Protein backbone atom coordinates (compact mmCIF):
# COMPACT_ATOMS: atom_id res chain seq x y z
CA UNK A 1 0.00 0.00 0.00
CA UNK A 2 1.42 3.33 -1.10
CA UNK A 3 1.03 6.35 1.16
CA UNK A 4 -0.50 9.43 -0.40
CA UNK A 5 -1.93 12.72 0.85
CA UNK A 6 -5.33 11.99 -0.76
CA UNK A 7 -5.51 8.67 1.10
CA UNK A 8 -4.75 10.44 4.38
CA UNK A 9 -7.56 12.95 3.75
CA UNK A 10 -9.98 10.12 2.82
CA UNK A 11 -8.97 8.13 5.92
CA UNK A 12 -9.40 11.06 8.32
CA UNK A 13 -12.73 12.10 6.77
CA UNK A 14 -13.99 8.51 6.84
CA UNK A 15 -12.92 7.97 10.43
CA UNK A 16 -14.50 11.28 11.51
CA UNK A 17 -17.86 10.22 10.04
CA UNK A 18 -17.58 6.69 11.46
CA UNK A 19 -16.62 7.82 14.96
CA UNK A 20 -19.58 10.24 14.97
CA UNK A 21 -21.95 7.25 14.88
CA UNK A 22 -20.41 5.56 17.91
CA UNK A 23 -19.29 8.53 20.03
CA UNK A 24 -22.21 10.98 20.20
CA UNK A 25 -20.01 13.70 21.70
CA UNK A 26 -18.09 13.81 18.39
CA UNK A 27 -21.28 14.17 16.36
CA UNK A 28 -20.32 17.77 15.49
CA UNK A 29 -17.22 16.50 13.68
CA UNK A 30 -19.30 14.09 11.61
CA UNK A 31 -21.74 16.89 10.78
CA UNK A 32 -18.89 19.20 9.77
CA UNK A 33 -17.32 16.63 7.43
CA UNK A 34 -20.70 15.82 5.85
CA UNK A 35 -21.43 19.55 5.36
CA UNK A 36 -18.07 20.02 3.61
CA UNK A 37 -18.83 16.95 1.47
CA UNK A 38 -22.25 18.35 0.50
CA UNK A 39 -20.63 21.68 -0.43
CA UNK A 40 -18.01 19.93 -2.57
CA UNK A 41 -20.72 17.76 -4.14
CA UNK A 42 -22.61 20.87 -5.26
CA UNK A 43 -19.47 22.16 -7.01
CA UNK A 44 -19.00 18.71 -8.56
CA UNK A 45 -22.59 18.90 -9.84
CA UNK A 46 -21.84 22.25 -11.45
CA UNK A 47 -18.70 20.79 -13.04
CA UNK A 48 -20.78 17.80 -14.19
CA UNK A 49 -23.35 20.05 -15.86
CA UNK A 50 -20.59 21.86 -17.78
CA UNK A 51 -19.18 18.45 -18.70
CA UNK A 52 -22.61 17.39 -19.99
CA UNK A 53 -22.87 20.53 -22.09
CA UNK A 54 -19.31 20.06 -23.36
CA UNK A 55 -20.00 16.45 -24.40
CA UNK A 56 -23.16 17.36 -26.30
CA UNK A 57 -21.69 20.50 -27.84
CA UNK A 58 -18.80 18.37 -29.07
CA UNK A 59 -21.25 15.84 -30.50
CA UNK A 60 -23.13 18.57 -32.40
CA UNK A 61 -19.85 20.07 -33.59
CA UNK A 62 -18.50 16.78 -34.96
CA UNK A 63 -21.90 15.64 -36.33
CA UNK A 64 -21.81 12.32 -34.49
CA UNK A 65 -24.85 9.99 -34.64
CA UNK A 66 -27.58 11.20 -32.30
CA UNK A 67 -26.48 14.84 -32.52
CA UNK A 68 -30.15 15.82 -32.94
CA UNK A 69 -30.72 14.78 -29.33
CA UNK A 70 -27.69 16.82 -28.33
CA UNK A 71 -29.16 19.95 -29.94
CA UNK A 72 -32.34 19.29 -27.98
CA UNK A 73 -30.35 18.94 -24.77
CA UNK A 74 -28.46 22.21 -25.28
CA UNK A 75 -31.77 23.90 -26.08
CA UNK A 76 -33.35 22.35 -22.93
CA UNK A 77 -30.49 23.70 -20.89
CA UNK A 78 -31.27 27.22 -22.11
CA UNK A 79 -35.04 27.07 -21.35
CA UNK A 80 -34.71 27.03 -17.50
CA UNK A 81 -32.16 29.85 -17.73
CA UNK A 82 -34.68 31.95 -19.68
CA UNK A 83 -37.60 31.08 -17.37
CA UNK A 84 -35.51 31.79 -14.24
CA UNK A 85 -34.39 35.09 -15.82
CA UNK A 86 -38.01 36.02 -16.60
CA UNK A 87 -39.10 35.16 -13.05
CA UNK A 88 -36.25 37.16 -11.58
CA UNK A 89 -37.17 40.11 -13.83
CA UNK A 90 -40.85 40.07 -12.88
CA UNK A 91 -40.87 38.84 -9.27
CA UNK A 92 -37.31 39.28 -8.01
CA UNK A 93 -37.02 35.53 -7.38
CA UNK A 94 -35.45 32.91 -9.68
CA UNK A 95 -38.28 30.44 -8.95
CA UNK A 96 -41.75 31.59 -9.96
CA UNK A 97 -44.54 31.26 -12.53
CA UNK A 98 -42.40 30.62 -15.65
CA UNK A 99 -40.04 28.15 -13.99
CA UNK A 100 -42.96 26.23 -12.52
CA UNK A 101 -44.69 26.36 -15.92
CA UNK A 102 -41.64 24.76 -17.58
CA UNK A 103 -41.43 22.18 -14.81
CA UNK A 104 -45.15 21.36 -14.89
CA UNK A 105 -45.69 21.30 -18.65
CA UNK A 106 -42.32 20.05 -19.94
CA UNK A 107 -40.38 18.07 -17.36
CA UNK A 108 -43.25 16.32 -15.54
CA UNK A 109 -44.99 15.06 -18.74
CA UNK A 110 -41.69 13.84 -20.20
CA UNK A 111 -40.80 11.93 -17.02
CA UNK A 112 -44.36 10.62 -16.70
CA UNK A 113 -44.22 9.26 -20.24
CA UNK A 114 -40.91 7.55 -19.43
CA UNK A 115 -42.58 6.05 -16.37
CA UNK A 116 -45.40 4.74 -18.55
CA UNK A 117 -42.83 3.31 -20.94
CA UNK A 118 -41.21 1.60 -17.96
CA UNK A 119 -44.41 -0.37 -17.24
CA UNK A 120 -44.42 -1.71 -20.80
CA UNK A 121 -40.67 -2.45 -20.67
CA UNK A 122 -41.03 -4.37 -17.41
CA UNK A 123 -43.93 -6.48 -18.71
CA UNK A 124 -41.93 -7.27 -21.85
CA UNK A 125 -38.81 -8.08 -19.78
CA UNK A 126 -40.79 -10.46 -17.54
CA UNK A 127 -42.19 -12.28 -20.57
CA UNK A 128 -38.78 -12.42 -22.28
CA UNK A 129 -37.17 -13.74 -19.11
CA UNK A 130 -39.11 -16.98 -19.49
CA UNK A 131 -37.46 -17.67 -22.83
CA UNK A 132 -34.02 -16.58 -21.63
CA UNK A 133 -33.91 -18.10 -18.16
CA UNK A 134 -36.20 -21.09 -18.01
CA UNK A 135 -34.77 -22.56 -14.81
CA UNK A 136 -36.19 -23.07 -11.30
CA UNK A 137 -35.24 -19.60 -9.89
CA UNK A 138 -36.65 -17.97 -13.05
CA UNK A 139 -39.93 -19.87 -12.73
CA UNK A 140 -40.18 -19.06 -9.00
CA UNK A 141 -39.61 -15.38 -9.85
CA UNK A 142 -42.30 -15.41 -12.53
CA UNK A 143 -44.85 -17.29 -10.40
CA UNK A 144 -44.17 -14.89 -7.49
CA UNK A 145 -44.80 -11.85 -9.70
CA UNK A 146 -48.04 -13.43 -10.92
CA UNK A 147 -49.23 -14.34 -7.40
CA UNK A 148 -48.38 -10.97 -5.84
CA UNK A 149 -50.13 -9.09 -8.68
CA UNK A 150 -53.14 -11.37 -8.34
CA UNK A 151 -53.37 -11.30 -4.54
CA UNK A 152 -52.94 -7.53 -4.25
CA UNK A 153 -55.47 -6.64 -6.94
CA UNK A 154 -58.49 -4.88 -5.37
CA UNK A 155 -61.20 -7.44 -6.31
CA UNK A 156 -59.22 -10.52 -5.25
CA UNK A 157 -58.15 -8.72 -2.07
CA UNK A 158 -61.78 -8.01 -1.08
CA UNK A 159 -62.78 -11.58 -1.99
CA UNK A 160 -59.98 -13.06 0.16
CA UNK A 161 -60.85 -10.83 3.12
CA UNK A 162 -64.56 -11.71 2.88
CA UNK A 163 -63.81 -15.43 3.02
CA UNK A 164 -61.28 -15.04 5.83
CA UNK A 165 -58.34 -15.84 3.55
CA UNK A 166 -56.48 -12.55 4.08
CA UNK A 167 -53.70 -14.59 5.67
CA UNK A 168 -52.87 -16.19 2.29
CA UNK A 169 -52.25 -12.76 0.79
CA UNK A 170 -50.19 -11.69 3.81
CA UNK A 171 -48.16 -14.91 3.64
CA UNK A 172 -46.96 -14.01 0.14
CA UNK A 173 -46.77 -10.23 0.29
CA UNK A 174 -45.42 -9.85 3.81
CA UNK A 175 -43.93 -13.02 5.32
CA UNK A 176 -42.18 -14.56 2.28
CA UNK A 177 -41.38 -11.22 0.62
CA UNK A 178 -40.05 -9.69 3.86
CA UNK A 179 -37.94 -12.80 4.54
CA UNK A 180 -36.38 -12.68 1.07
CA UNK A 181 -35.81 -8.93 1.27
CA UNK A 182 -34.10 -9.25 4.66
CA UNK A 183 -31.79 -11.92 3.31
CA UNK A 184 -30.80 -9.71 0.37
CA UNK A 185 -30.43 -6.62 2.58
CA UNK A 186 -28.17 -8.54 4.94
CA UNK A 187 -25.82 -9.29 2.05
CA UNK A 188 -25.99 -5.69 0.81
CA UNK A 189 -25.25 -4.34 4.33
CA UNK A 190 -22.23 -6.62 4.76
CA UNK A 191 -20.98 -5.69 1.29
CA UNK A 192 -21.37 -2.01 2.12
CA UNK A 193 -19.32 -2.40 5.31
CA UNK A 194 -16.64 -4.39 3.45
CA UNK A 195 -16.41 -1.67 0.78
CA UNK A 196 -16.11 1.02 3.46
CA UNK A 197 -13.35 -0.90 5.23
CA UNK A 198 -11.42 -1.32 1.96
CA UNK A 199 -11.67 2.43 1.29
CA UNK A 200 -10.48 3.26 4.82
CA UNK A 201 -7.60 0.81 4.49
CA UNK A 202 -6.61 2.45 1.22
CA UNK A 203 -7.02 -0.74 -0.81
CA UNK A 204 -9.63 0.88 -3.08
CA UNK A 205 -8.78 4.46 -4.04
CA UNK A 206 -11.42 5.89 -6.33
CA UNK A 207 -9.94 9.34 -5.72
CA UNK A 208 -6.80 8.45 -7.71
Amino acid sequence: MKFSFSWLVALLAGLAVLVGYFVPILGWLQELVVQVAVLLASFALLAGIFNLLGVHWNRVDTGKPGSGYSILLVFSFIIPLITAGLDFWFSGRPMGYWTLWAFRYIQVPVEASLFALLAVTLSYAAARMLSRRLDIPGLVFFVTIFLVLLLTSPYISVFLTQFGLGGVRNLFTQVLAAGGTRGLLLGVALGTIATGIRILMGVDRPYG
Partner: protein
Amino acid sequence: MADIISFLLGPIFLLVFVTLVGVFWFTGRKSTAREVRDLSPFIRLRRVVGLAVEAGTRLHVSLGWGGLIGVQGASALVGLSLLDRIARAASISDRPPVVTAGDGVLVTLSQNTLRSAYHAMDVDDQYDPQAGQLSGVSPFAYAAGAMTLMQAEQPSANALIGHFGSEVALLAEAGERNGGVVIAGSDNIAAQAVLYAAAHEPLIGEELYAGGVYLGAGAAHTASLKAQDALRWVLSVVLIVGALLKLMGMW
Protein backbone atom coordinates in the same frame (compact mmCIF):
# COMPACT_ATOMS: atom_id res chain seq x y z
CA MET B 1 -27.33 -2.79 30.80
CA ALA B 2 -29.25 -3.47 27.57
CA ASP B 3 -28.50 0.11 26.46
CA ILE B 4 -24.75 -0.38 26.98
CA ILE B 5 -24.80 -3.67 25.09
CA SER B 6 -26.68 -2.19 22.12
CA PHE B 7 -24.32 0.84 22.18
CA LEU B 8 -21.22 -1.38 22.10
CA LEU B 9 -22.60 -3.85 19.57
CA GLY B 10 -21.87 -1.61 16.55
CA PRO B 11 -18.18 -0.93 17.32
CA ILE B 12 -17.62 -4.56 18.33
CA PHE B 13 -19.16 -5.84 15.08
CA LEU B 14 -17.00 -3.45 13.08
CA LEU B 15 -13.89 -4.46 15.01
CA VAL B 16 -14.61 -8.16 14.38
CA PHE B 17 -15.14 -7.39 10.67
CA VAL B 18 -11.83 -5.49 10.39
CA THR B 19 -10.00 -8.23 12.32
CA LEU B 20 -11.44 -10.94 10.05
CA VAL B 21 -10.42 -8.97 6.93
CA GLY B 22 -6.90 -8.60 8.39
CA VAL B 23 -6.63 -12.31 9.28
CA PHE B 24 -7.92 -13.51 5.88
CA TRP B 25 -5.67 -11.01 4.11
CA PHE B 26 -2.60 -12.13 6.03
CA THR B 27 -3.30 -15.85 5.62
CA GLY B 28 -4.37 -15.60 1.97
CA ARG B 29 -1.65 -13.35 0.58
CA LYS B 30 0.47 -16.13 -0.86
CA SER B 31 -2.39 -18.43 -1.77
CA THR B 32 -2.91 -18.98 -5.48
CA ALA B 33 -5.77 -21.45 -5.17
CA ARG B 34 -9.19 -20.35 -6.36
CA GLU B 35 -11.29 -20.13 -3.20
CA VAL B 36 -14.51 -18.59 -4.46
CA ARG B 37 -17.43 -20.04 -6.37
CA ASP B 38 -17.91 -19.10 -10.03
CA LEU B 39 -20.12 -16.07 -10.58
CA SER B 40 -21.22 -16.04 -14.20
CA PRO B 41 -21.77 -12.24 -14.49
CA PHE B 42 -18.13 -11.48 -13.67
CA ILE B 43 -16.78 -14.35 -15.73
CA ARG B 44 -18.79 -13.06 -18.67
CA LEU B 45 -17.67 -9.47 -17.98
CA ARG B 46 -14.02 -10.55 -18.10
CA ARG B 47 -14.67 -12.33 -21.37
CA VAL B 48 -16.54 -9.43 -23.02
CA VAL B 49 -13.83 -6.96 -22.01
CA GLY B 50 -11.28 -9.13 -23.83
CA LEU B 51 -13.54 -9.49 -26.85
CA ALA B 52 -14.23 -5.73 -26.94
CA VAL B 53 -10.49 -4.99 -26.98
CA GLU B 54 -9.96 -7.47 -29.81
CA ALA B 55 -12.94 -6.28 -31.85
CA GLY B 56 -12.31 -2.59 -31.18
CA THR B 57 -15.77 -2.02 -29.72
CA ARG B 58 -16.77 0.30 -26.90
CA LEU B 59 -17.52 -0.68 -23.29
CA HIS B 60 -20.02 1.28 -21.25
CA VAL B 61 -19.97 1.51 -17.45
CA SER B 62 -22.89 3.18 -15.70
CA LEU B 63 -22.55 4.13 -12.04
CA GLY B 64 -26.14 5.07 -11.19
CA TRP B 65 -27.39 8.26 -9.62
CA GLY B 66 -26.99 7.55 -5.89
CA GLY B 67 -23.99 9.73 -5.18
CA LEU B 68 -21.54 9.11 -2.38
CA ILE B 69 -23.22 10.79 0.57
CA GLY B 70 -25.31 8.02 2.10
CA VAL B 71 -25.32 4.23 2.24
CA GLN B 72 -25.96 3.93 -1.49
CA GLY B 73 -22.44 5.28 -2.06
CA ALA B 74 -20.94 1.82 -1.48
CA SER B 75 -22.45 0.38 -4.66
CA ALA B 76 -21.07 3.31 -6.66
CA LEU B 77 -17.64 2.73 -5.10
CA VAL B 78 -17.85 -0.90 -6.23
CA GLY B 79 -18.68 0.42 -9.71
CA LEU B 80 -15.62 2.66 -9.62
CA SER B 81 -13.46 -0.26 -8.51
CA LEU B 82 -14.76 -2.31 -11.47
CA LEU B 83 -14.22 0.66 -13.78
CA ASP B 84 -10.57 0.74 -12.73
CA ARG B 85 -10.15 -2.94 -13.63
CA ILE B 86 -12.05 -2.56 -16.91
CA ALA B 87 -10.08 0.58 -17.90
CA ARG B 88 -6.78 -1.20 -17.23
CA ALA B 89 -7.85 -4.26 -19.24
CA ALA B 90 -9.13 -2.11 -22.11
CA SER B 91 -6.27 0.42 -22.04
CA ILE B 92 -4.82 -0.94 -25.29
CA SER B 93 -8.15 -0.67 -27.08
CA ASP B 94 -8.75 1.86 -29.87
CA ARG B 95 -12.03 2.74 -28.22
CA PRO B 96 -11.60 3.18 -24.45
CA PRO B 97 -14.61 2.71 -22.13
CA VAL B 98 -17.19 5.43 -21.54
CA VAL B 99 -18.81 6.08 -18.19
CA THR B 100 -22.18 7.61 -17.36
CA ALA B 101 -23.45 8.70 -13.95
CA GLY B 102 -26.29 10.74 -12.54
CA ASP B 103 -24.27 12.53 -9.90
CA GLY B 104 -21.52 15.16 -10.20
CA VAL B 105 -19.22 13.55 -7.63
CA LEU B 106 -19.40 10.20 -9.40
CA VAL B 107 -18.54 11.84 -12.72
CA THR B 108 -15.49 13.51 -11.18
CA LEU B 109 -14.42 10.25 -9.54
CA SER B 110 -14.96 8.26 -12.75
CA GLN B 111 -12.72 10.71 -14.65
CA ASN B 112 -10.15 10.39 -11.88
CA THR B 113 -10.34 6.60 -11.97
CA LEU B 114 -9.88 6.53 -15.74
CA ARG B 115 -6.92 8.90 -15.55
CA SER B 116 -5.15 6.95 -12.80
CA ALA B 117 -5.84 3.61 -14.56
CA TYR B 118 -4.32 4.88 -17.83
CA HIS B 119 -1.43 6.42 -15.93
CA ALA B 120 -0.75 3.08 -14.21
CA MET B 121 -0.77 1.36 -17.62
CA ASP B 122 1.51 4.07 -19.06
CA VAL B 123 -1.01 5.15 -21.70
CA ASP B 124 -1.79 8.65 -20.43
CA ASP B 125 -2.79 9.82 -23.91
CA GLN B 126 -5.81 7.48 -23.83
CA TYR B 127 -7.43 9.69 -21.21
CA ASP B 128 -10.36 11.76 -22.43
CA PRO B 129 -12.16 13.86 -19.78
CA GLN B 130 -15.39 13.48 -21.78
CA ALA B 131 -15.27 9.70 -21.35
CA GLY B 132 -16.83 10.27 -17.92
CA GLN B 133 -20.20 11.92 -18.49
CA LEU B 134 -23.05 13.25 -16.40
CA SER B 135 -26.05 11.96 -18.32
CA GLY B 136 -28.76 13.58 -16.20
CA VAL B 137 -29.44 14.69 -12.65
CA SER B 138 -32.82 13.05 -11.97
CA PRO B 139 -33.30 9.25 -12.24
CA PHE B 140 -35.26 9.36 -15.50
CA ALA B 141 -33.13 12.13 -17.03
CA TYR B 142 -30.08 10.02 -16.19
CA ALA B 143 -31.62 6.95 -17.81
CA ALA B 144 -32.65 8.92 -20.91
CA GLY B 145 -29.14 10.41 -21.26
CA ALA B 146 -27.42 7.05 -20.83
CA MET B 147 -29.79 5.45 -23.37
CA THR B 148 -28.86 8.12 -25.92
CA LEU B 149 -25.18 7.38 -25.35
CA MET B 150 -25.81 3.66 -25.77
CA GLN B 151 -27.50 4.32 -29.08
CA ALA B 152 -24.69 6.59 -30.29
CA GLU B 153 -21.73 4.49 -29.15
CA GLN B 154 -23.21 0.98 -29.67
CA PRO B 155 -21.20 -0.57 -26.80
CA SER B 156 -20.66 -4.31 -26.96
CA ALA B 157 -21.06 -4.58 -23.18
CA ASN B 158 -22.79 -2.48 -20.55
CA ALA B 159 -21.85 -2.80 -16.88
CA LEU B 160 -24.57 -1.12 -14.83
CA ILE B 161 -23.11 -1.09 -11.33
CA GLY B 162 -24.38 1.39 -8.72
CA HIS B 163 -27.53 2.74 -7.16
CA PHE B 164 -30.54 2.64 -9.51
CA GLY B 165 -34.30 2.59 -9.22
CA SER B 166 -36.72 0.69 -11.42
CA GLU B 167 -35.74 2.96 -14.37
CA VAL B 168 -32.70 0.68 -14.79
CA ALA B 169 -35.01 -1.55 -16.86
CA LEU B 170 -34.94 1.13 -19.57
CA LEU B 171 -31.13 1.02 -19.59
CA ALA B 172 -31.05 -2.78 -19.70
CA GLU B 173 -33.56 -2.78 -22.53
CA ALA B 174 -31.57 -0.15 -24.47
CA GLY B 175 -28.38 -2.18 -24.00
CA GLU B 176 -30.02 -5.32 -25.30
CA ARG B 177 -31.65 -3.49 -28.23
CA ASN B 178 -28.22 -2.25 -29.33
CA GLY B 179 -26.87 -5.78 -29.28
CA GLY B 180 -24.71 -5.39 -26.18
CA VAL B 181 -24.39 -7.67 -23.18
CA VAL B 182 -25.91 -6.20 -19.99
CA ILE B 183 -24.23 -7.07 -16.68
CA ALA B 184 -25.96 -5.24 -13.86
CA GLY B 185 -26.23 -4.98 -10.10
CA SER B 186 -27.58 -2.54 -7.58
CA ASP B 187 -27.93 -2.16 -3.82
CA ASN B 188 -31.60 -1.26 -4.28
CA ILE B 189 -33.93 -4.27 -3.86
CA ALA B 190 -36.47 -2.93 -6.39
CA ALA B 191 -33.73 -2.48 -8.98
CA GLN B 192 -32.43 -6.01 -8.28
CA ALA B 193 -35.88 -7.43 -8.94
CA VAL B 194 -36.16 -5.47 -12.18
CA LEU B 195 -32.67 -6.47 -13.28
CA TYR B 196 -33.36 -10.14 -12.61
CA ALA B 197 -35.92 -9.97 -15.39
CA ALA B 198 -34.29 -7.42 -17.69
CA ALA B 199 -30.51 -7.99 -17.61
CA HIS B 200 -28.53 -10.78 -19.29
CA GLU B 201 -26.39 -11.21 -16.18
CA PRO B 202 -27.97 -9.82 -13.00
CA LEU B 203 -26.04 -9.53 -9.74
CA ILE B 204 -28.26 -10.34 -6.77
CA GLY B 205 -27.68 -9.33 -3.13
CA GLU B 206 -24.06 -9.30 -2.07
CA GLU B 207 -22.80 -10.61 -5.44
CA LEU B 208 -22.38 -6.98 -6.49
CA TYR B 209 -19.67 -6.46 -3.88
CA ALA B 210 -17.60 -9.46 -4.99
CA GLY B 211 -16.54 -7.99 -8.33
CA GLY B 212 -12.99 -7.09 -7.32
CA VAL B 213 -12.19 -10.73 -6.52
CA TYR B 214 -13.21 -11.95 -9.98
CA LEU B 215 -11.48 -9.13 -11.83
CA GLY B 216 -8.17 -9.64 -10.02
CA ALA B 217 -8.20 -6.57 -7.76
CA GLY B 218 -5.99 -8.25 -5.17
CA ALA B 219 -5.84 -10.26 -1.95
CA ALA B 220 -7.63 -7.60 0.13
CA HIS B 221 -10.79 -8.03 -1.96
CA THR B 222 -10.71 -11.80 -1.45
CA ALA B 223 -10.15 -11.28 2.29
CA SER B 224 -13.09 -8.89 2.62
CA LEU B 225 -15.31 -11.31 0.68
CA LYS B 226 -14.36 -14.14 3.03
CA ALA B 227 -15.04 -11.92 6.06
CA GLN B 228 -18.44 -11.05 4.55
CA ASP B 229 -19.25 -14.74 4.10
CA ALA B 230 -18.15 -15.65 7.63
CA LEU B 231 -20.21 -12.88 9.22
CA ARG B 232 -23.22 -13.68 7.06
CA TRP B 233 -23.21 -17.21 8.49
CA VAL B 234 -22.91 -15.84 12.03
CA LEU B 235 -25.76 -13.36 11.49
CA SER B 236 -27.96 -16.02 9.84
CA VAL B 237 -27.49 -18.36 12.83
CA VAL B 238 -28.19 -15.49 15.27
CA LEU B 239 -31.39 -14.57 13.37
CA ILE B 240 -32.65 -18.17 13.25
CA VAL B 241 -31.82 -18.87 16.91
CA GLY B 242 -33.45 -15.55 17.91
CA ALA B 243 -36.59 -16.40 15.93
CA LEU B 244 -36.77 -19.89 17.49
CA LEU B 245 -36.31 -18.48 21.01
CA LYS B 246 -39.06 -15.96 20.33
CA LEU B 247 -41.31 -18.71 18.95
CA MET B 248 -40.79 -20.80 22.08
CA GLY B 249 -41.49 -17.78 24.29
CA MET B 250 -38.02 -17.88 25.83
CA TRP B 251 -37.05 -14.33 24.75
